């Protein structure tokens, strides 16, 4: 049996958990003290040895990413923390920053020290006012205490952190779009290569890491790479925050070793809501192909989920029970992608818009005999044909839902989804009768 392993979340229930005092009470900044006694290359080696893989969805090895930076040339290099948490279903970085912003700040200080950056930016989505307040305060506290600033812990090293609020755009979670946005432009992805490690922010070498990745660094330095690698699976090491939402008895954040299964997590969370059964779920947000009850025992690690045909993503486990219309769910996600497509690439800009219209017909029971083929064909022409992963993510829910629930799409040729699955039955709060499609 796998058990929970609170590391990042270990003091989230402490009084005033967000303050420097509370963080000190929980070994705060001890890892930074250890780090500045190490050679920077030794820190990078430790993170490489830990096996830590990016917690923002793609799972790229964090230490390897740091190692891609070219040798120092005397010019600036930057750390940019991706705090633009916007993937539907994903809700882990936000509570982490609200409850324990200093975990992130300490991780930033260690990372900057390791990679030779004097300046870091936290790109926070603009729609989280209180998280922004907490981060600004944490930076000010850390600076006053000498953990940031012109002479970090007496090392002579300068590390300054700027917390930057975005302004509402999912695409800015894509790392190169984020960099364009941080430069004061429309957030549109850049063609890669060059990768940010070579030409990132202001065309300088830049490391872009997710909040949870950076927040995991202090524990690796404090406890050792072997400690971290001893959790999880051989190729997906360590712990991660698993976010359960939807039709589950006790939704919330569960920090566990990678490789835990949904069956184990659901047991801890009291199961699917009483009187109902699991129909489909996302392993890592809306951009990861959906799973069904047949996937309950798949280890939630990068390899096992990929082998089963999806992606671990951000461990955003959105649970939907048998009352839920998969057509309704997929349409709403498709409307999201159409809304958030930056418009740069034609397949994504036009394709998401077409698919939205086809799916609206199917939801209303007015689909045509060709509509499913049209959807599959359109998905084929979007997947892999755009700059960034938004387009690939947009097709994931559609193709996977048709694979597992084709009959529901076929029923959309004659019967509205809200007749097949009366929408009020899915609600968990009193809603009265819902008259068909909203909006």
């Amino acid at each position: 049996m796998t058990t929970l392993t609170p590391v990042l979340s270990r003091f989230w229930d402490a009084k005033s958990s967000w303050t420097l005092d509370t963080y000190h009470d929980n070994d705060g900044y001890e890892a930074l003290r250890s780090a500045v006694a190490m050679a920077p290359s030794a820190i990078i080696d430790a993170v490489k040895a830990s096996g830590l893989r990016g917690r923002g969805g793609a799972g790229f090895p964090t230490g390897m990413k740091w190692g891609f930076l070219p040798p120092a040339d005397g010019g600036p290099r930057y750390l940019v923390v991706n705090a633009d948490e916007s993937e539907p279903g994903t809700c882990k970085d936000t509570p982490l920053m609200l409850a324990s912003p200093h975990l992130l700040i300490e991780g930033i200080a260690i990372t900057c020290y390791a990679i030779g950056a004097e300046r870091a930016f936290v790109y926070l989505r603009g729609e989280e006012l209180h998280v922004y307040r907490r981060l600004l305060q944490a930076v000010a506290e850390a600076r006053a205490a000498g953990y940031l600033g012109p002479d970090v812990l007496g090392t002579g090293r300068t590390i300054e952190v700027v917390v930057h609020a975005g302004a509402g755009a999912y695409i800015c979670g894509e790392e190169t779009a984020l960099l364009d946005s941080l430069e004061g432009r429309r957030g549109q992805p850049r063609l890669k290569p060059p990768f940010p490690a070579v030409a990132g922010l202001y065309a300088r070498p830049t490391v872009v890491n997710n909040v949870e990745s950076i927040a995991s660094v202090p524990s690796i330095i404090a406890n050792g790479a072997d400690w971290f690698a001893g959790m999880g699976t051989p190729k997906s090491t360590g712990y991660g925050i698993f976010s359960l939402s939807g039709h589950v008895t006790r939704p919330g954040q569960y920090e566990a070793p990678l490789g835990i299964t949904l069956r184990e997590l659901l047991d801890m969370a009291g199961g699917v809501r009483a009187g109902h059964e699991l129909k489909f779920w996302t392993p890592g947000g809306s951009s990861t192909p959906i799973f069904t009850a047949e996937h309950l025992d798949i280890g939630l690690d990068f390899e096992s989920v990929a082998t089963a045909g999806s992606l671990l993503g951000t461990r955003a486990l959105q649970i939907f029970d048998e009352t839920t219309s998969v057509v309704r769910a997929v349409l709403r996600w498709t409307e999201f992608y159409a809304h958030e497509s930056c418009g740069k690439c034609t397949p994504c800009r036009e394709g998401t818009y077409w698919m939205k219209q086809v799916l609206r017909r199917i939801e209303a029971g007015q689909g045509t005999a060709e509509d499913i083929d049209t959807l599959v064909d359109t998905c084929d022409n979007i997947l892999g044909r755009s700059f960034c992963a938004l387009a690939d993510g947009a097709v994931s829910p559609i193709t996977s839902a048709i694979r597992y629930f084709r009959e529901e799409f076929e029923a959309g040729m004659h019967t509205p989804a809200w007749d097949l699955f009366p929408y009020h039955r899915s609600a968990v709060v009193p809603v009265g009768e819902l008259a068909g499609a909203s909006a």
Partner: protein
Amino acid sequence: MTYPAVVEARLRAEAAEIIARYPVARSALLPMLHLIQSEDGYVSPGGIALCADIFGLTTAEVSAVATFYTQYKRHPNGRYTVGVCTNTLCAIMGGDAVWDRVSEHLGIGHDETTADAAITLERIECNAACDYAPVVMVNWEFFDDQSPESAVELVDRLRAGEAVAPTRGAAEVVGFREMSRVLAGFPDGRAGEGIGAGPKTVVGLKLARERGWVAPAAAARSTDSEVTSAPPTRKDA
């Protein structure tokens, strides 16, 4: 449309403060647009012209940036932006019904403002609080676990001018302009207000405490008996 001299001087001084945070001035454009909204309640033509002048851009270039991001408003915003999450998970859990009821109650649709200028209503995308679905945001503060009834009561209180406290956030929701000023990077002293974590945020931590589950001990810390009692957690997948 231009600003009175005293206002323009203050905005230029604050723009200089923002620009000083960045190695390259243009990075200050997004926070500067938040600052314009704190002054005018939206991204006004005068604000666009001022930004263009400060950053050496054309007004078209500034507008191109402003119109890309949904938080920048093209018309005067109400005192409160009420955002109902209607992305898939919230919608299915009851968010669609919340939207229907609030929209009907206020008599306005998406991106429309009540006649008393109190509320601008929006359908919003996922706001990273899915464990608290259905979610409503007021001036980008979290109102968790909403229902049609609670949301209608919420907007009525906002329209009546009552102080309203978010579930996870400051002691009370501040106005749109005050919020925009914080987003421009000028703290309002409220960071210490409110809670660190809501009940669902710590549901896993509480379960772990009940069952005595902890992360395994580091080798260097193996003298800590509480920690060493942890069961092995490695999975041989």
